[in-house]
């Protein structure tokens, strides 16, 4: 499952990132690395982007980006 499919208020753990180069790097610098828990917190009233809670910060990503982030849902983490 990819991050964009994560339902509202649900939590999941990142398993891998697609893509390469600066885009991938940028996501990783924000702390989106395999093993980290994310939570879909708010979706923009127009349907895109969605704000995810990552390591305590709220980060808005467009759907096209979230699609490149693979997650495993429903895992409770610390």
């Amino acid at each position: 499952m990819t991050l964009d499919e994560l339902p509202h208020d649900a939590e999941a753990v990142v398993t891998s990132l697609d893509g390469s180069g600066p885009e991938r790097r940028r996501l990783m610098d924000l702390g989106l690395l395999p093993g980290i828990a994310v939570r879909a917190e708010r979706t923009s009233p127009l349907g895109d982007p969605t704000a995810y809670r990552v390591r305590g910060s709220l980060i808005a990503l467009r759907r096209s980006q979230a699609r490149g982030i693979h997650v495993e849902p429903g895992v409770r983490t610390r």
Partner: protein
Amino acid sequence: MSATGVLENASRLRAELPPDFTDGVVASLFDDADRIARRTVTADSRRARPALDQVLDRALTHRVWGFVVMGALFFGVFWFTIAGAAVPSDLLYRLLVDSGHSWLRGLFVDTGAPGWLTGLLVDGVYLGTAWVVAVMLPPMAIFFPLFTLLEDFGYLPRVAFNLDRVFARSGAHGKQSLTMMMGYGCNAAGVTATRIIDSPRERLIAIITNNFSICNGRWPTLILMGTIFIGSLVPPALAGLVAAGSVVVVAVLGIITTLVVSWGLSRTVLRGETSVYSLELPPYRPPQVWRTIYTSLIDRTFKVLRRALVMAAPAGAVIWLLSNVNVGGASLAAHLVGGLAPVGWLLGLNGIILLAYVVAIPANEIVIPTIMMLTMTLGSVQFGVQGGVMVNLPDAQAGTVLVQAGGWTLLTAVNLMLFSMLHNPCSTTVLTIWKETRSLRWTATATLLPLALAFAVTGVIAAVARLAGWA
């Protein structure tokens, strides 16, 4: 060995490493960060999640309420600015323009200063400057603190979050809405703010369209037009609200123009993929109200005002000279206005307005003073004023002057508002664009495209209005 040698060696060494070794580099840093954080931070889980933030976000980015609040805030800020500025503006007029000017003039006459010197300094420089203070200071002193409060609260990124899709659709960067909002204070600041956009293509789009965020220098024009021409169409009880409404409508048209032009650019000369980006939504922070008011007054208001004054003083002199240097029986101003009149007519404006915009290239703030002064000295009805003197005019009287002496109609007012929103950026902004892009081509585009748009839009409206018999 050479620089290329280093690069070659680097790619050779890279080829020997596993392809995903960079991931390992990042991951190991985060592992350390994670480990250290775990050992040093304790979170009280009962208070761990900022609940208030979530409630606020639920409202401010709500499907319906998000937009209602956004519209209300937008309208509220403009309305407060317009309504709140009326009384102090009037006071400043009386103080600086009316009393101050005649006092200063008396002083000059008493000391036996030559007429031209009195004219140039008192009727030109002083009056131009005083006018700008009276027109600009009150709205800015209200707008900047209000805007800064919203900014400190953390609302601006939420606007970007709410409107992202609209901007994405028009091929613009998701952070363009932030730079657009900075443009409401000053377009030069808005252009500098585009550095947060990493893709050069989208940054150019943001730079070119920043002009359509109505900067502070342009509000006085909109407010005056809205008050004397639009507000007067409705019963007095509603006049203020309608006047504010008309300014908001123009501001919204500015946003629509931004989107349309962004769309056009991203489909033609600046074609390309919409780049990915991420936007961090900061926590809401209770603004420090008094400090915000104080600092935004000192920093933003006075900074912008100082700039306006630096521009207004010489402009005052130029206006005075234009209307007092005679060539072939008429003032320079009269010649210029006459020459620009046909174009002005085509655009539903007039020669005076166009001349005012030429004089106001350094700063939009002086458009209205210039128009008023030129209309009174060159208009069809004489007001018995000396050339070059700008007189204290409450709004109602200003309207009379413009209608009777300038032959203004509703079309003139509406087109002036649109022209004000669309026309070329001021010279400071143009310079900033040059500094940021280092490209003559893009600086020229950012200057001329809005101007062409202003001509096209006002021209079409004038033609349609005349054909339909409205004007």
